């Protein structure tokens, strides 16, 4: 079976055929990431105790980190409902990036294309950015109703076009920041490995681990910041 580009033919009428593609390598790696992210809490919450040890300590630390991140951006009163969203954003991007860098995907040979981090595909990063956009719109509308649209003329009405533009540049920058970082890192490491496979790529790989972790943090922080900004009302 050819995996890289699976094409799904939907046949609507005998005279017209449209086909839709799917990047199956992204789906496969994202399923692996989801499996990792679900296996960890299932194993760790098996025996929750008041005095934590080992794995429970780790997952509590992660939850505390995510809560702190969300609370810093959104304020004490309103951060609670958004912890799952920001947490999933941070964890999925983090585990995706690190799985792309650490897991030996090249061992699995595909006939077309290759397995890598799911975030090196524009579809994934744009999907996450669109979700963030929808989330902050929803947050603003839910909290302030239609007066949310007053924020477009908020400092002065002269800034209206810029504020509207911001609604497009926010998801654009979110998606391209993540996409560019991860894809570029993978390409550079691939080039180094093809040139000098032994020691030289390792600093680049370590840098890649560091920057991909930072990118996860930045994506989550910015998402929380946008949501907080749209909920906070007039200064």
């Amino acid at each position: 079976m050819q995996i890289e580009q699976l094409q799904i033919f939907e046949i609507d009428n005998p005279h017209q055929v449209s086909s839709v593609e799917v990047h199956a390598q992204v789906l496969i790696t994202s399923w692996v990431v989801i499996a990792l992210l679900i296996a960890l809490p299932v194993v760790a919450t098996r025996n929750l105790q008041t005095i934590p040890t080992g794995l429970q300590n780790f997952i509590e630390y992660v939850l505390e980190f995510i809560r702190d991140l969300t609370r810093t951006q959104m304020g004490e009163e309103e951060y609670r409902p958004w912890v799952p969203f920001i947490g999933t954003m941070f964890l999925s991007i983090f585990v995706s990036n690190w799985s792309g860098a650490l897991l030996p995907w090249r061992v699995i040979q595909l006939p077309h294309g290759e397995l890598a981090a799911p975030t090196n595909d524009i579809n994934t990063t744009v999907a996450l950015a669109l979700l963030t956009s929808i989330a902050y719109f929803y947050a603003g509308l839910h909290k302030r109703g239609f007066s949310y649209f007053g924020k477009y003329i908020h400092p002065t009405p002269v800034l209206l076009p810029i504020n509207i533009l911001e609604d497009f540049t926010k998801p654009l920058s979110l998606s391209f920041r993540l996409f560019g970082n991860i894809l570029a890192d993978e390409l550079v490491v691939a080039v180094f490995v093809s040139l000098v496979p032994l020691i030289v790529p390792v600093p680049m790989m370590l840098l890649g681990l560091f920057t991909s972790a930072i990118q996860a943090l930045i994506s989550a922080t910015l998402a929380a910041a946008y949501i907080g900004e749209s909920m906070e009302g007039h200064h």
Partner: protein
Amino acid sequence: MAVIPCRASSARSSSGRVPAIRGAADQKVRVRYNCAFFQEALQNVALKVSQNPTVRKAAFLAMNTLWAIPAIAEEAEEKGKIFDFNLTLPIIVAEFLLLMLALDNLWFKPVAKVMDERDEAIRQKLMGVRDNSDEIKKLQEQAEAILKAARAETTAELNKMRRETAASLDAKLQESRQRVEKELAEALANLESQKEETLRSLDKQVQELSDQIVAKVIPF
């Protein structure tokens, strides 16, 4: 992607409204098949216009470009576009939302519950400790009061005892003094009486002596 309604592809679509998953190779075959049909039609048109030289040249150019288009379409099938948006995007959105639900129920809610319970328990214990310090202060005051009372009691007792012993001592002293005085008085009285007696005896003796002396001196 080239979508050409033609009889050649109806053979594949005759299987009805069924989505079928095929590989990239089949897509290439289908496009080439459409290309063949198209090229036949073009060649018929070319034969008809080949009489006129300028039209022939134009037709020649048009044919070349028209032949090139399916070839470009063919190449486009295997392109490695970077900005290749397709069905993956909504699938990732759906996966993210499902992952969010799963993580919320498996990780965030249980762990948050344990952490919040722990915070609550610690806060309760701290509040309890603060109350105990008040009680301790009360107990301390009580202890001090008891101590003070006890101390006062003992001093009072001591004083009383002191006074009593002093009084008894005084009484004894008085008694002995009186005894001594009485004895002294008796002794004095004794002495007086003895003195009187001796005086009297002396008087008698003096009288006797004087009588003797007179008798001796005055011889009669």
